[in-house]
């Protein structure tokens, strides 16, 4: 009985989740092709290469659920990634450097939050501006040169492998996933995020401290993005101002493809993980199949537009069907 219910629940999620179906479809396609796709190395690599974007996506999910949007994560990632390396290159211990980088995230998040919440500006455009500004800051502090890390231990944080198979990066990603999932589902903070995203005014009249809460989501998102930046720097063992070019759009897009509503109040980190997996599997699979780059680009565009269109279409059908 219980099993049956879980099964039904899964089925419901599957039909509702275009992204999930897309991932399954791609996995099936890869079954019928003679490639090294289904090797443990590749599957872990696939997870590994999606991990940083996923970490960012989990932070963004919180903001989106609360009815905001954050396009500055690319900038945050880059700046914090550079900060951590600059500090370490000046002989500051790793952990302190990482904390400082996260602090950078917190500061940016606070500014974003302050401007959107207390000054009632449009987060979409404010964070876009913040992203540009941070890119400039990153270029200025590095003079637009990539800076290699001189501390040999730093690289191991992301590049090491547990039992020689599971990349540390994947483990970090899973930890972030679990923490944010728990926060969103089982804490007062998380539920209130859904409330303010669902209806800001109602939440306000229900005595939720909407401003502080919404502000907190921006801070959380930026701190998570900063963590993503630290992991990126560790993975690449260097920091540069050019890393975060299209990150913000791709991540937000992945989160929405996964099914977290831009309008707020709907979604969660499992959906975001799947949304990002769509891109990860697609990229990896097409590389495995040796599909030419330009075609890959077009396929990616079609998948993005396609899934979102299907999703909208489903919602339209549901609207009409009631």
């Amino acid at each position, binding site marked *: 009985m219980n099993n049956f219910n879980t099964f039904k629940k899964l089925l419901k999620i599957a039909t509702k989740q275009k992204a999930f179906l897309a991932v399954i479809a791609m996995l099936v396609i890869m079954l019928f092709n003679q490639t090294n796709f289904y090797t443990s*190395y590749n599957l872990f690599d696939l997870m590994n290469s999606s991990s940083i974007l996923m970490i960012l996506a989990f932070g963004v999910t919180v903001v989106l659920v609360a009815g905001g949007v954050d396009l500055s994560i690319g900038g945050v990632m880059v700046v914090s990634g550079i900060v951590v390396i600059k500090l370490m290159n000046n002989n500051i211990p790793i952990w302190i450097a990482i904390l400082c980088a996260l602090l950078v995230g917190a500061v940016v998040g606070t500014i974003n939050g302050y401007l959107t919440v207390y000054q009632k500006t449009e987060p979409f455009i404010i964070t876009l501006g913040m992203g540009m500004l941070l890119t400039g800051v990153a270029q200025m502090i590095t003079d637009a040169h990539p800076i290699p890390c001189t501390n040999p231990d730093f690289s191991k944080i992301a590049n090491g492998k547990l039992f020689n198979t599971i990349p540390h990066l994947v483990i970090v990603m899973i930890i972030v996933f679990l923490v944010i999932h728990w926060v969103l589902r089982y804490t007062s903070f998380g539920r209130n995020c859904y409330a303010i995203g669902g209806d800001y005014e109602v939440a306000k009249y229900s005595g939720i401290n909407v401003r502080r809460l919404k502000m907190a989501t921006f801070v959380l998102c930026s701190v998570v993005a900063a963590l993503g930046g630290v992991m990126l720097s560790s993975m690449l063992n260097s920091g540069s101002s050019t890393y975060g070019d299209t990150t913000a759009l791709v991540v937000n897009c992945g989160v929405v493809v996964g099914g977290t509503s831009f309008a707020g109040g709907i979604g969660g980190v499992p959906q975001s993980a799947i949304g990002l997996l769509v891109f990860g599997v697609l990229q990896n699979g097409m590389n495995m199949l*040796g599909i030419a780059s330009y075609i890959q680009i077009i396929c990616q565009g079609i998948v993005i537009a396609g899934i979102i269109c299907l999703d909208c279409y489903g919602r339209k059908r549901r609207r009409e069907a009631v």
Partner: protein
Amino acid sequence: GKTTPTESTTDTPGEDTPVGTTDEFEKIAFIVADMANESQAFASKQFQQYAKDYNFEVVILDAKGDAQAETQAVKNAIAQGVKAIFVNPNDINAIIPALTEAKQVGIVVGMFSSDLPADKTDARDFFVGVNDNMAGEAAAQAFLNKFPDGANIVEIGGQSGHDAQIKRHDGFNNIISGTNINVIDFKATNTWSTAEAMAIMEDMIVKNGDEIDGVFCHWDNGATGVIQALMAADMKDVFVVGVDGCRAGFNQVTSGDQSVTIMQNFTTMTQKSLEMARKVIDGEAVEQQNFVPLDIVDIGNIDTFTAPEW
């Protein structure tokens, strides 16, 4: 299922034939920094064209101008079980961890066009390419030749933060500083955009007027914009130097709009890379650093070069 490439020796007989190799050709991967960049798109075509000559089958992976995507591409190549990887790096430091991993599983690693930092060269087997520092130096030399008595020039950089932009700028300024040629204005672009180069040039003309004797533009297509701006301002005798030696640069030199292009020969570079890889795989020793010389092309010697295909 199949084994992971990391445990490369545990292949059990009777399994599916490894996909990485066919009967005749060994699989190699060329990781392009950015396929939207025409010089690299051209290089990838060269790889596809010449791979068979060295008994290779080439997989092209696009890093889309992104350092992170590039390490992913390297790992993807590892997963595909290739014999050799050629990388045109977006960021020479960022690529090292991934290349180290590739070398650990026994893949031959060749750097294409840009080399790793001097103290990290053990992460690759060999390097073939031009040195972008040298491109900058050659451009500087062209100015020194043209203006022995000194001149005022401006520099328009490529995408700021990009490896080629950094090296061309550094190489150029190493030679130029201390000479009587003054770089009175420098600005890099947000992307390798002709329109941006043109707008910057227009604004530099307003600012510096007729003082400008020469322009060093980091890439020939940018020089196209520079030339447009100069023509609009009716400045005819400005000495324009570009890098690439692509079709645009060639045409501009031929028509006399551009004075010099520093030409890099991708065909030679590709062939040399493939040859090196073949040798390493076959167990021969190779030279680690292989510079393909840059040509300084001007109206005087342009007839001696074959017109580029890109």
